[in-house]
């Protein structure tokens, strides 16, 4: 049967790990891709929104505990809702403060403003929360294990990792229903395809753009909460790397496409963890970005991206 360190076992384990990492990338990538789709800018402050949601999650969970909610599921549920709302509010405010006043200016201006916003948010957290790594309590410990052959030879997934996959799937289904099957989602897609025409159809496109930022921030908050649960530690700088990776995922999948963002995230996560598990850990990022370059050579619009050609 299998021996310890069998490549097949490692492969199976790394597939699971990659799927989990990919889910997180995908959730954050949604925010990049939706904002790009609708106003054609890269919201470089998006990674910080994800970072802030980790802090909010930990702070509100502590507060809820302080106010005497002793049941863990109830406390988590309250914290989840509050964190989603406040993170959404952050996304909304970032657009109102840093991007909306620049609407109609050159494409470079909001980009610079986004980088500025990213620095502001990072330093705001650094100053108000300190530079230390924050610790999150262990909740819902436990693993599911599948033994192969002998007792020491197994593939495992923690409860929390299983929850990451489950929550990601549910979030994606909810987002898909919202975008493809509701009047609100139709207004979003119309605004994305032709903003002037959407205006002419009586849609308040400013409100739609705000909504896009709120949805993107909420998805990043889901990712932030899940990752906090999983790693149990975070600091003010986690938004940077996660943001870059998620942005890569969005471009890989085809920026502007929501299924593309999710697919790009999963592919990036799988590529990274398979390379780390089977070849070399140090060069996993090189491999991930190399993959991006390779895909872009053959499909410049990404895997599911559509070239901007319209029939006249």
């Amino acid at each position, binding site marked *: 049967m299998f021996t310890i360190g069998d490549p097949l076992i490692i492969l199976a384990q790394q597939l699971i790990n990659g799927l989990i990492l990919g889910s997180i990338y995908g959730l954050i990538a949604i925010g990049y891709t939706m904002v790009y789709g609708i106003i054609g800018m890269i919201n470089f402050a998006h990674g910080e929104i994800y970072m802030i949601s980790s802090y909010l999650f930990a702070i509100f969970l502590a507060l809820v505990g302080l106010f005497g909610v002793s049941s863990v599921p109830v406390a988590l549920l309250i914290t989840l809702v509050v964190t989603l709302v406040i993170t959404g509010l952050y996304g909304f405010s970032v657009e109102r403060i840093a991007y909306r006043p620049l609407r109609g200016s050159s494409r470079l201006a909001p980009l610079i403003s986004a980088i500025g916003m990213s620095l502001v948010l990072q330093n705001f957290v650094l100053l108000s929360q300190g530079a230390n790594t924050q610790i999150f309590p262990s909740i819902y410990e436990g693993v599911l294990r599948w033994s192969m052959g002998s007792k020491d030879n197994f593939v495992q997934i923690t409860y929390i990792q299983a929850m990451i996959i489950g929550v990601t799937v549910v979030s994606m289904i909810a987002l898909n229903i919202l975008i493809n099957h509701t009047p609100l989602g*139709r207004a979003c897609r*119309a605004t994305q395809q*032709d903003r002037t025409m*959407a*205006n*002419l*159809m*009586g849609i308040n496109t400013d409100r739609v753009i705000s909504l896009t930022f709120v949805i993107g921030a909420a998805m990043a908050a889901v990712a932030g909460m899940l990752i906090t649960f999983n790693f149990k530690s975070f600091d003010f700088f986690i938004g940077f790397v996660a943001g870059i990776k998620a942005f890569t995922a969005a471009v890989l999948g085809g920026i502007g496409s929501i299924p593309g963002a999710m697919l790009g995230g999963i592919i990036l996560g799988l590529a990274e963890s398979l390379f780390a598990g089977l070849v070399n850990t140090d060069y996993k990022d090189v491999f991930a970005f190399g993959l991006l370059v390779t895909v872009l050579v053959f499909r410049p619009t990404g895997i599911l991206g559509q070239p901007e050609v319209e029939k*006249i």
Partner: protein
Amino acid sequence: MAPVLEIKGLHAGYGPIKALRGIDLEVGKGEIMALIGSNGAGKSTLLMTICGIVKPTAGKVFYEGRDVTGIQSYNIMNQGVAQVPEGRRIFPRMTVLENLQMGGAKLSVAEFGRYLSWVQELFPMLSERAQQLGGTLSGGEQQMLAIGRALMSKPRLLLMDEPSLGLAPLISRRIFAIIEEINRRGTTILLVEQNAYAALRLANRACVLSTGEIVVSGDAQEMMDNPEVQEAYLGG
């Protein structure tokens, strides 16, 4: 009674370019008003300014007696104005049905059903191809979809920008027949056309726009007999 649309001394432009230089125009209830003129005369700019997409630099726009100058575009459109814009501008990655739903977003379910069957009766193609993506339709079909989409919003004032542009003669004749039918049902229409002959035949009144100014206006039939108009726009 106040005219459906009243424009007074309207100026608008893009930066230093002045596209409209003092337009005065009135469109009465139930009329078809034709707006003819050569390329770059400012016809499309005028429609976009009425809809609040282009902001006027001077002058006033009144819709059903209310001053709508400079208010947000979606506000104007939600008061019963619809536009069939130049180039059709249907939503290419939405199905035909979704495009129509965009038009009828403010209707109740029952009303939506009623208008949908009316629009599908006018253009049977729109029900046959309900699930097809808008971007895959031919030019003529896209034009029908653009008109259908505008009608779904139950407009009292319909602005149409070159509905016959680039269409085969047979299809453009059908489009003109349908414009007449829409008007017969009580919708006021402001029709921009390069095909001046067809537009004048359809319209009650007309005006000629040239470099941002109205140079001739009056009864459509009289315009057709006007030698100046004949020479410039009806090919002698």
